[in-house]
């Protein structure tokens, strides 16, 4: 096996594969699927959806570009490289909801021209800033009269059920989703339901009955039933109605217990005075104006106030990370309202997304997706070094692996926020000092600028890796 290899996550679909080669992204279309692909192309759907921003645009390039020999693909498509790849288990509630609605919209538009989707994988959607975009051009194929929504179960597991977990029970789905990778099964959601949920028609059908039929069918006359089902027919009008009703239901879903977030109101309640916030924003603005980064990672982004400052300064994209659902929801709404190229993802900095899935390589770890030009760690270090007992030296070294330059804020021990973290526990951090932090940073980076922004001595440091 020589030559270019497909990406490690691209193996499920026999219709084609995805390759990254010389900094470009290609998708092959195999001979077995070329008729389907030709048909979809002939409907004009690809072009229409790409123009509307629903689908990632592509162009057909020479099939020799990848130098693949046997079997040679029928077509090679080139799509633009996205600045960052994220996974559904890292998305916030409103982002997953937007992705679900995009999927349904695309499917409905496709059916209008005699095309359907062969699956409903949430991994087929990526975000450009706050906007979801469909990336899998091989999910589209000819609709055959009377066929069912084959991706319905997958849609429920990867979109609907994680949304219901937060909408009905106020539980963040991210850790669960990351654990299973394929979403949350309908059987699991059904077990959590209370009687009051059963009276909703959508819950009754998509959760209760679907699970009931699945379970009873595995017990009785499975082979006979499967034979009949394989030949069964579903009217197109019912198919469309099902997609439309699902879309309406999902558009109505909202998180339960919005007010219980720790950080959602952080902008209003944090210990910064407005002067401190102003000077911090000014520092970020200056950094972005000077560096002009293509991609910034904002670790512990909260509701994205400083991500916005970076974008205002000239950063082209910001990906923020936080583990608080309220902060993520706030970030999403900030990005929508102000049209920012900003996406906030769920992540606990002390437990970032690992390599996982088939062969441990199907989905990449956060670390291996580290392609940012700059990293921000504002008011983050004390959460790792004190609240999570991670040695300061490791925190500093880890941050330096993520990007060649950035801004780190060091919050000293006498600051009220650190005092709160220490209020119920013994201070076992004698080395947690500004001097020690600076010494560690200087070992591996050059300090471009630093500035004290609060009376307690909070220090912003602009560094460049050696």
């Amino acid at each position, binding site marked *: 096996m020589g030559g270019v290899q497909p990406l490690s996550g691209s193996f499920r679909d026999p219709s084609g594969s995805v390759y990254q080669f010389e900094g470009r992204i290609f998708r092959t279309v195999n001979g077995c699927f070329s008729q389907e692909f030709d048909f979809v192309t002939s409907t004009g759907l690809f072009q229409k959806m790409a123009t509307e921003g629903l689908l990632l645009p592509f162009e057909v390039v020479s099939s020799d570009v990848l130098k693949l020999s046997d079997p040679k693909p029928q077509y090679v498509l080139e799509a633009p490289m996205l600045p960052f790849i994220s996974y559904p288990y890292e998305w916030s509630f409103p982002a997953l909801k937007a992705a679900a609605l995009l999927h349904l919209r695309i499917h409905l538009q496709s059916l209008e021209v005699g095309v359907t989707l062969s699956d409903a994988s949430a991994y087929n959607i990526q975000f450009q800033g706050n906007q979801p975009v469909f990336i899998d051009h091989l999910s589209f194929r000819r609709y*055959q009269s009377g066929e069912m*929504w084959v991706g319905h179960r997958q849609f429920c597991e990867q979109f609907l059920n994680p949304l219901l977990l937060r909408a009905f029970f106020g539980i963040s789905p991210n850790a669960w989703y990351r654990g299973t990778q394929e979403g949350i099964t309908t059987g699991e959601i059904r077990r959590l339901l209370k009687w009051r949920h059963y009276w909703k028609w959508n819950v009754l*059908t998509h959760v209760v009955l679907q699970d009931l*039929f699945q379970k009873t*069918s595995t017990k009785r006359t499975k082979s006979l039933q499967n034979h009949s089902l394989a030949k*069964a027919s*579903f009217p197109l009008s019912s198919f469309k109605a099902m997609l439309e009703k699902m879309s309406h239901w999902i558009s109505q879903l909202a998180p339960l217990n919005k007010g219980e977030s720790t950080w959602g109101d952080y902008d209003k309640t944090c210990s910064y005075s407005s002067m401190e916030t102003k000077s911090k924003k000014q520092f970020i603005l200056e950094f972005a104006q000077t560096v002009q980064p293509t991609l910034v990672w904002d670790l512990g982004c909260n509701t994205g106030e400083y991500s916005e400052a970076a974008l205002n300064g000239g950063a082209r994209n910001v990906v923020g990370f936080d583990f608080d659902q309220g902060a993520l929801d706030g970030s999403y709404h900030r990005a929508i309202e102000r049209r920012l190229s900003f996406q906030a993802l769920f992540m606990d900095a002390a437990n970032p997304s690992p390599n996982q899935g088939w062969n441990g390589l199907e989905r990449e770890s956060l670390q291996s997706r580290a392609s940012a030009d700059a990293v921000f760690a504002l008011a983050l270090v004390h959460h790792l070094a004190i609240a999570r007992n991670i040695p300061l030296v490791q925190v500093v070294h880890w941050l330096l692996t993520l990007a060649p330059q950035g801004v780190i804020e060091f919050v000293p021990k006498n600051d009220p926020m650190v005092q709160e973290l220490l209020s119920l526990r013994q201070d076992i951090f004698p080395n947690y000092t500004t001097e020690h932090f600076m010494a560690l940073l200087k070992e591996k980076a050059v300090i471009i600028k630093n500035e004290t922004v609060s009376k307690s001595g909070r220090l912003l440091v602009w560094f460049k890796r050696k």
Partner: protein
Amino acid sequence: MRHLGSFVVISIILIVFGFENSALAYLDPGTGSMVLQLLLGGIAGAVVILKLYWSRFVGLFRGNAREESEHSSSEDQK
């Protein structure tokens, strides 16, 4: 409840054996999802049938009423 159960089963049987179809099988749709879709399709079909018969049923009376009125008006002219 028993009637509802019979209705569901009859709808499913009607639909299952009424048509034939085979789709490209890249993804296992899951039996639960398929039976559910047959049920939903069956309900939608039943609603269409009911509407159709209802309009015929109503039309029957309306038609009779119209015929009667036409009949009486023609008698009046005599």
